[in-house]
């Protein structure tokens, strides 16, 4: 693999940004650390979501299903296994679950896929609720000595891995195949691409990442139960943030996550009952005014500038 000068520059800049972000827990503000955790969590979720859904245009609402499975992995295993291994196990289970879902549904087109993924979270939630009723439990206590700063660093590392993975995939045959599939699946198949395999492979990424995110965040909840772990609103938030930023670029979702988290934070502290309203309005704004997200806005602005410069030359 060859790296150009601009690749190297981007890598160095990304490493510097990562180092700066890693300093946040030393700032001493619990409030901002809390917001930092939310931002890195959604960065990992939305960026990995966009890796699959950006090129293929399949809207997945399965984030909550994978996330919930991850929290339960930690909830059930934290007393017997070290934390890092639980994150790995959650990632594996998330990837396998995503592969199963993928093989079953990715042959379906658009709407059927959306509905299936939404139903999946509900299905897993009901199964776990049923399991708990059988054993007479209500929820699980997750009492660990993992601090908020620890959670933040784990999530930051996961986000960095998602970016690195996304960057590598974008340069790989798989990434190219997914872009072709997103453009025209018939052409993709007739160019020699195993479309089902490519889609399933890439769908495993957001599955694994969401499960790992859930596993990392479980200690923060202290007490987990199905309605909390599998809350469907999480899936919608991830979609909205990724689309607000723009799913066509690796850095796109981040541009959506930061303003949206801050907005949601200020809304929920000032008007705690109106958060769903904000989500709804945000969705309308995206659909009507920002169909390609902030990324599209920036690219149009840049294209306009170039055109003006070209006109003057």
């Amino acid at each position: 693999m060859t790296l150009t000068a601009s690749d190297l520059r981007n890598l160095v800049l990304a490493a510097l940004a990562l180092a700066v972000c890693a300093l946040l827990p030393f700032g001493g503000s619990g409030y901002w650390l809390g917001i930092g955790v939310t931002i890195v969590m959604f960065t990992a979720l939305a960026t990995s979501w966009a890796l699959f859904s950006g090129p293929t245009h399949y809207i997945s609402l399965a984030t909550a299903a994978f996330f919930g499975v991850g929290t339960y992995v930690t909830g059930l295993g934290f007393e017997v296994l070290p934390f890092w291994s639980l994150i790995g196990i959650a990632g594996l289970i998330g990837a396998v679950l995503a592969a199963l879902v993928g093989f079953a549904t990715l042959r379906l087109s658009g709407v059927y896929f959306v509905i299936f993924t939404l139903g999946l979270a509900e299905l897993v939630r009901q199964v776990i609720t049923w399991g708990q009723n059988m054993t007479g439990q209500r929820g699980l206590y997750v009492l660990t000595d993992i601090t908020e700063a620890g959670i933040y660093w784990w999530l930051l590392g996961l986000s960095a891995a998602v970016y690195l993975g996304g960057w590598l995939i974008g340069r790989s045959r798989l990434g190219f195949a997914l872009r072709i599939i997103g453009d025209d699946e018939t052409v993709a198949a007739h160019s020699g691409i195993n479309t089902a395999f490519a889609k399933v492979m890439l769908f495993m990424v957001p599955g694994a990442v969401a499960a790992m995110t859930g596993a990392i965040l479980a200690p923060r909840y202290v007490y987990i139960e199905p309605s909390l772990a599998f809350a469907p609103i999480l899936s919608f938030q991830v979609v909205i943030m990724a689309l607000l930023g723009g799913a066509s670029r690796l850095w796109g979702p981040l541009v959506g996550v930061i303003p949206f988290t801050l907005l949601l934070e200020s809304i929920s502290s000032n008007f705690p009952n109106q958060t769903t309203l904000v989500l709804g309005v945000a969705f309308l704004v995206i659909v009507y005014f920002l169909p390609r997200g902030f990324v599209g806005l920036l690219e149009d602005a840049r294209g306009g500038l170039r055109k003006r410069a070209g006109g003057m030359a």
Partner: protein
Amino acid sequence: MRQASPVLAVRGATKRFGGLVAVNAMDFDVAEHQVMGLIGPNGSGKSTTLNLISGALPLTAGTISLRGTPISGLPAQTITRKGVSRTFQLVRLLPSMTVLDNVVAGAVFGHRRLWGAEARAQAETLLERVGLGGQGHLPVGQLTYIDTKRVELARTLAGDPKLLLLDEWLAGLNPTELQIGIDLIRSLRDEGRTIILVEHVMDAIRSLCDRCVVMAAGTKIAEGTPAEVLSDAEVIRAYLGDDDA
């Protein structure tokens, strides 16, 4: 004289859509370096036959073999990798990509799988080949109709296929473009490529095809050189009706 083992052998290929028999027990061979025309009136099953060969549709019955190995029943991507590549009746390009990336797509995943600089070099050579040299950076939305056809042709050639399927590649071109198009396909033929041509343009069929298979209502009604089949009474009847036969 007995021909060497054919590149493509179609035996009893049949496609039914419910009660409708779109392709009925088609038999034909395509020999190496041969340009075969698949002709017939509209709705006679030519495109469906092509779809059966390329794997876009599964066969209801019969077999299709590429150099003696059965390919019927395989998915389209496997058939492409084995060396059968096609264009579409309605041009299909990748709208979000540049001209060059459209062709690179064929080079990366096709019969010969290239990557990186090799795939780009292959794509640039082919763009040159189809008359679009130096146009690789253009978005496909800016192309004229014939140029979109050229890009699609370059994409199918990029994987270096053993057999090329052209589905009405010359349709919709104006007279000047038609001549350019015929010359382009003739140059492929002169390279020794094996081609199946679904076509309505009679000039093209006469000047390009070594052999023709004529279909009507899903069935093969004639086979032979263009001159033979175009003077065949049954073929004339199929095209023009009983009065002219």
